[in-house]
């Protein structure tokens, strides 16, 4: 029984950790509108852009996964958000080597970086913040984190989910991903809830409907209130997402998609 379980764990680790990339192209660009529920009305607040590109690094070429979130110009005078999330990953396995997160939100600045060492099972974490009261001065802190091989940052995880062979799964099947965020590893469960056709700005799309929950936490509220729709084709692009957290609820809608692999 123990050997069987070990074999199963190795299988899933191998499967998830080293699945070939069949979904993510090298010049893909997805643009989304992020909206937040204010007094019962969904108000468009920001744009999220997810882009990929090939970059030379080390002994070869990596895939750069770049996600930028910016408030629309009309909101900038009230609360300006300009966040950049990046992961530099293996083109074939989508395993990350480096993750960077730079956030600028209403004057608050934070930079976070993880440099993975898969062989050693560690990641070097770097945190950088502004010195209080000083405009251009920063302080930084480094620490070493111990990680299992199938722990990834949030950007790499999103692209890994897109690379899953969802067509093989049945409704109700779920998978748990270990997501590294702010030096904490959080288990996130993705459950296949079914298939739905959605009318989007890029046309009518048949989609996989996925439920997202955080194991052992109520950060994401409600039962099946946090949902993600991926196109049910080889690209599996996210076209719609709904989320519900303590401070409210919102949604993400696709506006355009280009440079798709398939």
């Amino acid at each position, binding site marked *: 029984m123990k050997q069987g379980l070990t074999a199963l764990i190795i299988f899933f680790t191998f499967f998830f950790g080293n699945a070939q990339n069949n979904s993510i192209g090298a010049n893909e660009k997805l643009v989304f509108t992020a909206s937040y529920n204010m007094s019962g009305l969904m108000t468009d607040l920001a744009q999220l852009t997810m882009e990929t590109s090939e970059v030379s*690094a080390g002994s070869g070429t990596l895939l750069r996964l770049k996600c930028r979130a*910016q408030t629309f110009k009309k909101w900038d005078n009230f609360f300006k958000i300009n966040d950049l999330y*990046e992961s530099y990953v293996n083109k074939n396995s989508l395993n990350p080597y480096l993750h960077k997160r730079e956030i600028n939100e209403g004057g608050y600045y934070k930079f976070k970086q993880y440099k993975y060492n898969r062989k050693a099972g560690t990641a070097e974490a770097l945190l950088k913040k502004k010195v209080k009261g000083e405009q251009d001065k920063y302080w930084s802190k480094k620490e070493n984190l111990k990680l299992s091989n199938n722990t990834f940052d949030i950007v790499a995880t999103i692209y890994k989910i897109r690379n899953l062979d969802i067509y093989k799964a049945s409704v109700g099947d779920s998978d748990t991903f270990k997501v590294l965020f702010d030096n904490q590893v959080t288990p996130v469960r993705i459950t296949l809830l079914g298939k739905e056709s959605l009318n989007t700005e890029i046309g009518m799309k048949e989609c996989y409907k996925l439920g997202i929950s955080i194991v052992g936490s109520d950060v994401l509220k409600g039962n099946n209130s946090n949902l993600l729709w991926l196109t049910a084709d080889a690209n599996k692009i996210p076209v719609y997402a709904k989320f519900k957290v303590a401070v409210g609820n919102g949604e993400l809608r696709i506006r355009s998609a280009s440079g798709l692999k398939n």
Partner: protein
Amino acid sequence: MRVLLSILALLAALIGLILGILPFGGIAFIPLVIGILLVAMAYIAGRKTNASTRFLKIISTLIILGALLSIYRSVFDKNEVEQTEEIIEQEVESLEEAQEELKDLEIEN
């Protein structure tokens, strides 16, 4: 009663006007509609005593102004992000720093 309704209508009109100026879009219509209803109620309450409607007319003007501003913003305010040289430079710099961090990397197949 009429005075209270008028004050509440004025408050609603001002909130609607402020929300109309700010980019809150359709949310401004919530206090504006409430304001219109309160104006109507204040007018009906004042009819019996032949009270002056000048104040209510001023409030109505504010409500119409707020509504026009909201409609204008909804039609003409585009959902656009700022694309500055600063942002492009940030991304180029970030890439260069990443390449520097990864210069000794042996990429697995």
